């Protein structure tokens, strides 16, 4: 199930909220577990079994870790952690990467079957989330969860199940057993949710149509202007889609009494690539830092080892985004940039005017999105060549102009919305004005989103890949 659908908004959500709040506190997690599984199994009911398997295995691994630690058996605890991690990664590999490896090995003559299994929704997100559990218990950052229901609810929690934020167990452990529900929290959840819904339905879907035009355009018709317009559209689509989902997750979480961390912080205003990654998909970056980069020694190592660590982390970050080699290249592209910034570029940049720093960052990020968005290598090559001036269609043409003018108001709104401008203005509004404007904006967002969903032939879900 996805949030940006009529049956979620006007059927699943009101029923879940209603029953959740009339359910006594001690039964609420059990109720959530049930509706989480409905949410998860909506597209592929069979995978509910896979989910239950994951829950049970990780639940017992956490208990085993805690028990070994209690007995002073560090080796046993480590084995339990390793077993849980291997099993989770094996499931992720099997469902997500098997076909990629099989088709690649077929090229070198190995005959491995391609399975074409449907990707369980959100598997990359919830696998990473559950893997934090045995580690956090081992590190003593969290207690082992005694209740299978509470643990199952943590793994499947529907607001962030399918598109993040990726929450570490230690961040949510206390909330699983004790959380408050208040109108203040619910109302702030409503605001964040509606902002997220509008980002996804009104901005991302709309701008996404422009990217689709350029993705589908035969490469011999590409123009320089068109290629940049297309990749600009994709960068806005992905940002609003992804951050919209994260906002909706945070909002829904608050409606149910949870507090999730923020996942995006205006990434496109960054002044360096390093800063961009501190602002983009924050929960993923923080996951890799805590559970891969630092265990490998982080930056408290010799330079060659540091660069090696960075390459490993960014290769993993890349391929996490999808079972296709272009994502690996995309990750390594960032490895190179971030190493360069660490080594010397960062110091040079700091001395340049802010405008140059912004242009530098946006340029490199836009190029990265072309690598990210075009999976076919030949196509990607043509697209990048077009961006760098070697476009078969020349600098620009009537079509590029048509799309540019058609989408100009949308582009202006979207670019403005990707900066903190609106948030700053909102804070300066007097409280009395806020009280009047807020419900008007909420209703406008809900009504327009509903209209676009009712007539929504175009409502892609970008995270099937992830």
């Amino acid at each position, binding site marked *: 199930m996805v949030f940006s659908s009529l*049956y979620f908004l006007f059927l699943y959500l009101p029923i879940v909220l209603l029953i959740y709040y009339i359910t006594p506190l001690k039964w609420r997690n059990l109720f959530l577990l049930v509706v989480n599984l409905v949410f998860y199994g909506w597209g592929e009911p069979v995978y509910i079994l896979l989910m239950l398997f994951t829950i049970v295995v990780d639940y017992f691994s956490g208990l085993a870790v805690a028990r070994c630690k209690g007995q002073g058996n560090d080796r046993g605890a480590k084995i339990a952690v390793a077993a849980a991690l291997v099993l989770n990664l094996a499931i992720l590999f099997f469902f997500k990467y098997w076909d990629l490896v099989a088709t690649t090995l077929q090229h070198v003559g190995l005959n491995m079957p391609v399975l074409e299994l449907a990707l369980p929704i959100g598997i990359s997100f919830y696998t990473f989330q559950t893997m934090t559990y045995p580690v956090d218990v081992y590190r003593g950052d969290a207690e082992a969860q005694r209740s299978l229901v509470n643990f199952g609810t943590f793994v499947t929690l529907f607001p962030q199940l399918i598109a993040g934020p990726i929450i570490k167990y230690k961040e949510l452990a206390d909330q699983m057993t004790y959380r408050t529900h208040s109108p203040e929290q619910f*109302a702030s959840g*409503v605001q964040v949710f*509606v902002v997220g819904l509008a980002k996804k339905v009104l901005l991302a879907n709309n701008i996404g149509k422009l990217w689709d035009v350029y993705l589908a355009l035969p490469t011999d018709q590409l123009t320089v202007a068109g290629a940049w317009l297309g990749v600009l559209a994709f960068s806005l689509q992905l940002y609003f889609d992804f951050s919209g989902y994260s906002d909706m997750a945070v909002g829904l979480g608050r409606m149910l009494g949870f507090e999730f961390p923020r996942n995006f912080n205006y990434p496109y205003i960054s002044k360096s690539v390093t800063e961009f990654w501190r602002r983009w998909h924050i929960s993923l970056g923080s996951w890799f830092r805590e559970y891969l980069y630092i265990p490998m020694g982080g930056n408290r190592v010799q330079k060659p080892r540091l660069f090696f660590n960075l390459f490993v982390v960014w290769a993993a970050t890349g391929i996490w985004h999808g079972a296709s080699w272009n994502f690996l290249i995309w990750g390594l592209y960032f490895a190179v940039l971030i190493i360069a910034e660490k080594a010397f570029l960062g110091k040079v940049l700091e001395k340049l005017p802010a405008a140059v720093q912004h242009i530098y960052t946006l340029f490199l990020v836009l190029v990265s999105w072309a690598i990210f968005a075009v999976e076919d290598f030949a196509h990607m090559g043509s697209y990048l060549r077009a961006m760098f001036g070697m476009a078969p269609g020349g600098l620009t043409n009537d079509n590029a102009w048509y799309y540019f*003018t058609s989408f100009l108001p*949308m582009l202006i709104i979207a670019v403005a919305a990707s900066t903190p401008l609106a948030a700053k203005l909102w804070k300066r509004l007097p409280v009395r004005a806020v009280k009047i404007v807020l419900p008007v904006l*909420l*209703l406008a967002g809900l009504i327009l989103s509903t209209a676009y969903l*009712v007539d929504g032939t175009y409502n892609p879900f970008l995270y099937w890949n992830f």
Partner: protein
Amino acid sequence: MSKKYCIFITALFCAFIGVFLVANAAAPDRESSEMENRVLQQLPEIDLGTPAKGFQDGNFFNGKFMRDFETYTTDQFIGRDAWVDLKARTERALGKKENNNVYFADNGTLITRFDQPKDPERVTDNLNYVNNFVENVDIPVVFSLIPTQACIWADRLPEGAPNASQTDLMAQAQGAVTGAVWADVYTPLMEHKDEDIYYRTDHHWTSLGAYYGYTGLASALGYDPVPLSDYTPTVRSTEFYGTVFSSSGVRWVSPDTITTYVPDDGITVVSHTYDNAGNPVEEQRALYVESFLSVKDKYSMFLGGNQSLGVVKNANNPDGPKLLIIRDSYADSLVPFLTAHYSEIHLIDPRYYHLSVKDYVEQNGIDQALVLYSVPNFVSDGNLFWITR
């Protein structure tokens, strides 16, 4: 924010999602949408299937139930027409020049986008089928394609709007089908492009446009067209909202007028189909079926709409030749003009007619054949192989 105010915001949100939950549950489901000209999804029933077949014979474990249910919620959403309208208006307010693949063109015209055929092989295949048909039958065959608004009224499109060339496709068709005589309907339509030769809200040509098409077919089919001034135009409806209106979501344009020119005295129309048992069934129709003027689908007034096989006979011209037309719905408004020159006009729509056309030609003493499609239909139709049988 005070607690009271937060309760108000909470209540506002819950009321919004709750009201539509209740309203959707309470409102009766609609069979079809007249506004959109299509059948709406009904509430699907869960079928778990049987364990022996791995549950794959049901609709639940393969996800079909969920997909149908999702379509059901959007199709049956309360006030659907108003939401669709709101979205189209918002798109326009945001400076968009198209919605749902329909351009907001000048003069209150809605024009369906024409893109390069997605499947160029289909175009060559369809042209080969026409060639095969020409070789199969022993009568002269005329072939022509009708350009649509996107081609003839290209000057009404938004500036720079992507618009694939229909003339290139017509030239390709003319060059590929060597056994048939090519008739040029493009030139007369282009000459009269400032007249109301197409509907502004429907994908078809008007009777006037069909008349110019009729003049373009004249030399290839071998008749002298009746001058337009010989006819007295009759306005049939001034309230016609066509298919492009439906698909566009645009609700702010004025309706079209349907006019006819040719009187229907002495003309009979019989539609031939089969009942469920496979027995032939004859249905009496007319050149103009006026009952369609009171429903949304008013274009079906011409010959009563889609049919597998239709036979139009003109009692006033019993000795005239017999013409067979392999066609799409554009022919419906053309046929009235052709009746003057033929004793019988047989209309075959390969979407529905799957018997041997060759046999049909021989058994019915057909003298001439015409293959006539609009360009978008011809390049996308997947049923033309039936005419080779």
